[in-house]
């Protein structure tokens, strides 16, 4: 119901342009700054940043410890904005974590970029806290009954990111190779990180 509706675009696009026109005319904002910010969001910010953080944590026990202790400070080591309060929570065979924001759509932009539409949609926001296992099943993730599901409802300016489990068959992989395995969904906690191709597992 809150899906993208192309028929609504003409009006909102017009309204948005009117808003920008007035803000620029009044000297409150500049179109150049708007352009720059958009390009930053489109090019520099995205889940690859988070994937690098995860890969580093998988390969550097000291970094992992600092990351779980104080996420914001730790990610600054990788050149990411360290003034973002970030709590990183670790998945284990017994504990699965997932992140939601029921009241709006708080999301760890600094490490994951802009949230996908489903994260902002009403279905995920309403259901993740009352039937997380059912939601995870829709994402293709069936958890054993013994696994505890830890749901993090982001209600403050603290941001939450999941440190997924390192999959089997990745022993010989470099940090860069590992980063390529890590998906956005795994860092939200609605997926796990898959093992590399079967031959990789056999060799690992």
């Amino acid at each position: 119901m809150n899906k993208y509706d192309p028929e609504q675009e003409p009006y909102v696009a017009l309204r948005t342009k009117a808003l920008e026109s007035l803000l620029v005319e009044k000297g409150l904002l500049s179109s150049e700054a708007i352009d720059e910010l958009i390009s930053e969001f489109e090019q520099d910010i995205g889940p690859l940043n988070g994937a690098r953080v995860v890969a580093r944590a998988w390969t550097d026990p000291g970094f992992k410890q600092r990351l779980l202790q104080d996420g914001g400070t730790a990610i600054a080591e990788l050149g990411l904005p360290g003034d973002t309060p970030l709590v990183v929570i670790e998945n284990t065979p017994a504990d699965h974590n997932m992140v939601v924001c029921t009241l709006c759509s708080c999301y760890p932009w600094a490490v994951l970029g802009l949230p996908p539409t489903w994260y902002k949609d009403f279905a995920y926001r309403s259901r993740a806290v009352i039937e997380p296992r059912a939601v995870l099943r829709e994402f293709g993730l069936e958890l054993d009954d013994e696994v505890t599901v830890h749901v993090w409802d982001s209600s403050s300016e603290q941001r939450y990111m999941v440190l997924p489990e390192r999959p089997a068959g990745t022993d010989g992989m470099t940090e860069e190779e590992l980063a390529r395995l890590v998906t956005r969904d795994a860092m939200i906690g609605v997926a796990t990180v898959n093992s590399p191709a079967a031959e990789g597992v056999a060799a690992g």
Partner: protein
Amino acid sequence: MNGVHDMGGTHGFGPVQREENEPTFHADWEARVLAMNRLSRAHGYFNIDEFRFGIESMQPAHYLRSTYYERWLATVEYNLIEKGLLTSDELDARTELLRSQPETGLPQHISAEPAPQIARDTPETPAAPLQPRFAVGDPVLARNVHPTGHTRMPRYIRGKRGVIHLLHGPAIFPDTNALGLGENPQNLYNVRFDGRELWGDSAEPGQVLYIDLWESYLEPVQS
């Protein structure tokens, strides 16, 4: 406020619908709304709590039928008008102008502006340490209160017992900051609730919920 935005535990919204290879934006105007919001906040035209309260103040039916960036557009308009930076009439007139004369360009860049750090989501000011009322491990009760203004304590938590899981330290208090009543920093805690405490017999097995709650949202309880 007890609004439709407070969605935790609501039924009826159907399955989670994912889009394969979703683009960063679905239309140019979405990107510009995002940027105008971020820049407006960076310039201090309104704060993040006012931004959120502007969305919550939408008519419930309007909220539910709007897309994400339509809600953002609504609150950016709402807040800029509230702050006296533009008027509703101006905006209507400019919209009408652009509709009737689509070839109209944007105005020239008029003023130089500062370039604040914008691509982040941090509190506007750091707060000095405050003596915490609760310690990690303390049992607490989320107060059963129903403010009509802005609050970051959703309904599904209220009146429920949890345990202090983390002490984040002082944070701007959204309930006052959203209403122009000051930042009034309070200690912010992450509080852990058992799924059965929240949902009773309807809880799924083995669920734990964590949520950040400000000190005044909480009461001590006997363990």
